[in-house]
């Protein structure tokens, strides 16, 4: 009964989305306020029905309703409740419902927090988002319905893939999808502006907070995915340039370019058409990512089961959405003005060159990911493009980007002079260079790549300190000055510092990580990285839906016990799938990572054990956290919190 209600709710939601996608847009085009004002009520009601549908599916999982095919494929009665709930989005159909739910949520948020926007703009923005919603609901109802019945019902489910039975599944997809879907807001704003013919600095100001919030979620989602892979897969890798990972990285890169481009447009009313194009591109890449993961076009460890029918649907949807947007862009963009003036050497120009770099970086990831497809389609045979390519092409682009990151916040708007800027930064550069050259020596091994990575990181740190010093230092009340800086200024510094921390993490781990794959008899000791790892044997334990061999490893330093580690080799009851659970001891300076290999046959309990030392690896995700924090600070800036009364006094700068 409940699944049928869920199915029915989806149909109603589709109907409401169709109304939302058409009536307000027509209303705005014809200056019909009655039609235009249907946007908000339709947004609210559509959300309600998607929530009902989602809750119905959750219910089916929680009560073990194995007459629903999707539940039978992804759940099991022995599965812990928390994973039964997260299994809702563990497979293709359910993850689409999560997409639809989060999209409904964003539509709701825009409907609620847009009181200060002109009615026709709200109508268009919500209308465009409604059309996107139509696409996903239709996709579900036509090809991927999570409520399809399995008759006769299965006695028990096939169990959720053990790799997914982890807190990672609870947080990573929802957060990532919040980012993917969130870029649809910037997209909708861009389309609305193109439709209305009104594209100015105010449009940028309205778009910016929404884009930043989506970007924050995307940053968190990707970081979570990386961390999850690290501790789950058992051999300490954290990024593989896998097509699905790239599919999330590309919108993130363009999203970053978009945030910075919006800054220029908001400030100067300049480069509006480029910003609009970026907004279209960011969401287009989100949709493209969805396509790549679900169509079977590329091989990836993450892909959902593929089906050509589904592939054709998403591709058609993609083509319509992106194609129409780009045609609209080609038609309307020439009429957009140029905006305010600024020099070749100015902060605006630096921001724009950073845009170029980010776009080229995105393009290179794109080319690398899709090249196998291009080659195959042209009949040139099969090709593999893996990490060696991406590292060779992507990493060099980071260097000029980081250079800009340091100079940008210091450079003046409109015009700066090179000698003056160079004079201001000379000490920052010198100190960064010194640290970069000397620090590797403390770790024992020196290499040019390590030094380069550290130079980049400390360049950002040094210029940040310089900027803070210039603004907060000097005579007068420090606290007053500190409070005088806008939150978006602090947000920017935090986010850039996050990048620096991230680069330190990546550089140190790549340069100094060690791995030992050893045979350990009970009582054996491995000396590595200044630690002694003692293997104390393995005991059999039972989990809620698995049995495991639990290893006990004591770790000491200079004879003193530091920690006990318990790596596991699990076998899940239902699927029989084996899985390694690594034991990790995390600290500020690095991780100790121990995982069990295989038991050695014909020995008295000896096992193959893998021990990794990963210096500074947590700085990678700490850096991402800081970046996200920076974004949160930036959105909290006072200028976005102004009341309606004050805002109506602000006159929008008309771009010329």
């Amino acid at each position, binding site marked *: 009964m409940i699944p049928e209600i869920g199915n029915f709710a989806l149909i109603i939601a589709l109907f409401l989305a169709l109304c939302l996608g058409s009536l307000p847009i027509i209303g705005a085009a014809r200056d019909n306020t009655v039609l235009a004002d249907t946007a908000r009520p339709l947004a609210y009601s559509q959300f309600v029905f998607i929530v009902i549908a989602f809750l119905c599916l959750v219910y089916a999982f929680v009560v073990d309703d194995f007459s629903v095919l999707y539940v039978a494929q992804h759940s099991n009665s022995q599965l812990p409740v928390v994973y039964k709930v997260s299994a809702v989005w563990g497979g293709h159909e359910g993850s689409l419902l999560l997409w639809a739910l989060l999209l409904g949520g964003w539509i709701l948020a825009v409907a609620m927090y847009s009181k200060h926007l002109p009615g026709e703009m709200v109508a268009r923005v919500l209308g465009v988002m409604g059309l996107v919603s139509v696409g996903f609901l239709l996709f579900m109802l036509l090809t991927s319905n999570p409520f399809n019945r399995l008759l006769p019902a299965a006695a028990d489910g096939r169990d959720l893939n053990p790799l997914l039975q982890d807190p990672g599944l609870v947080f990573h997809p929802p957060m990532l999808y919040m980012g993917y879907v969130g870029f649809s807001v910037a997209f909708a704003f861009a389309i609305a502006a193109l439709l209305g013919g009104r594209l100015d600095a105010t449009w940028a100001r309205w778009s910016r907070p929404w884009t930043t919030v989506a970007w924050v979620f995307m940053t968190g989602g990707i970081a979570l995915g990386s961390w999850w892979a690290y501790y789950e897969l058992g051999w300490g890798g954290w990024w593989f340039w896998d097509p699905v990972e790239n599919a999330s990285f590309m919108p993130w890169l363009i999203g970053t370019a978009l945030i910075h481009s919006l800054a220029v447009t908001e400030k100067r009313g300049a480069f509006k058409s480029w910003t609009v194009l970026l907004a279209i591109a960011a969401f287009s890449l989100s949709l493209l990512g969805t396509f790549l993961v679900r169509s079977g076009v590329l091989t990836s460890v993450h892909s959902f089961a593929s089906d050509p029918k589904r592939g054709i649907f998403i591709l058609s949807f993609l083509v319509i959405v992106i*194609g129409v947007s*780009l045609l609209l862009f080609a038609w309307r963009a*020439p009429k957009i003005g140029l905006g305010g003036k600024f020099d070749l050497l100015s902060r605006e120009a630096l921001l724009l060159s950073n845009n170029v770099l980010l776009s080229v970086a995105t393009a290179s990831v794109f080319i690398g990911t899709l090249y196998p497809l291009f080659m195959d389609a042209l009949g040139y045979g099969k090709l593999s493009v893996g990490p060696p390519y991406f590292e060779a092409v992507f990493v060099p682009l980071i260097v000029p980007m980081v250079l800009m990151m340091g100079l940008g916040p210091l450079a003046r708007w409109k015009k700066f002079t090179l000698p003056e800027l160079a004079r201001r930064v000379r000490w920052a550069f010198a100190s960064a260079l010194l640290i970069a050259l000397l620090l590797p020596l403390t770790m024992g091994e020196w290499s040019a790549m390590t030094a380069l990575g550290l130079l980049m990181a400390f360049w950002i740190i040094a210029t940040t300190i310089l900027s803070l010093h210039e603004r907060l230092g000097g005579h007068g009340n420090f606290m007053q000055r500190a409070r005088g800086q806008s939150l978006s200024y602090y947000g920017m510094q935090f986010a850039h510092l996050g990048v620096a921390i991230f680069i330190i993490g990546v550089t140190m781990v790549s340069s100094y990580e060690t791995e030992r794959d050893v045979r350990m008899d009970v009582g054996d000791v491995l000396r590595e990285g200044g630690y002694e790892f003692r293997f104390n044997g393995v005991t059999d334990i039972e989990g809620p839906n698995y049995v495991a061999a639990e290893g006990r490893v004591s770790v000491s330093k200079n004879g003193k016990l530091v920690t006990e580690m318990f790596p596991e080799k699990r076998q899940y009851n239902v699927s029989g799938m084996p899985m390694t659970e690594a034991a990790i001891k995390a600290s500020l300076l690095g991780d100790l990572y121990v995982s069990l290999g295989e038991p050695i046959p014909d020995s008295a309990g000896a096992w193959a054990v893998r021990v990794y030392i990963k210096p500074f690896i947590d700085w990678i995700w700490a850096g991402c956290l800081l970046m996200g924090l920076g974004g949160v600070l930036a959105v909290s800036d006072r200028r976005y919190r102004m009341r309606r009364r004050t805002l109506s006094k602000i006159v929008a700068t008309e771009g010329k």
Partner: protein
Amino acid sequence: MARFILPFVIFAILAAFLFVGLGLNPHEVPSPLVGKPAPAFTLPQLYEPEKQFSLQDMQGKVWLFNVWASWCTACEYEHPLFMELSRQNIVPIYGMDYKDKREDAEAWLRRHGNPYTLVVSDTEGRVGIDYGVYGVPETYVIDKQGVIQYKHIGGVTEQVLSEKILPLVKELQAK
């Protein structure tokens, strides 16, 4: 001003590629060995392990070389076709038992029938690597000069047999 249409044009080209891509199978890896001499090998026979069999023994004959294993489920699907083919006596079929146990392979053949003129055992999979085997079953068509003329990855189907393999065999036998 024409530059504004550029994004659309680029996208249109991309979309075309993606549509084509839907029809392709990224898992299928064609073999670089087609058109090249089959790698030489000498392996023990399955039923008489003291006896060896070499690639050289097949010089001057057109033959099918089928890589299979008792643990391979897809092999069960293509096997009836080989049984039928052996009854028709068009072309000799030689089998290579890949990474298998002798008892398991013999039992499997007892159960499903034996279409092979001869079966060799590649217990360690080394000859398989030489032949670029990565997913059993795989079938090769080898000509009188010992050159690999065709390789099929995965289970052979009625369609592949009638459209690709048999016509090629007839053509090679006529030379």
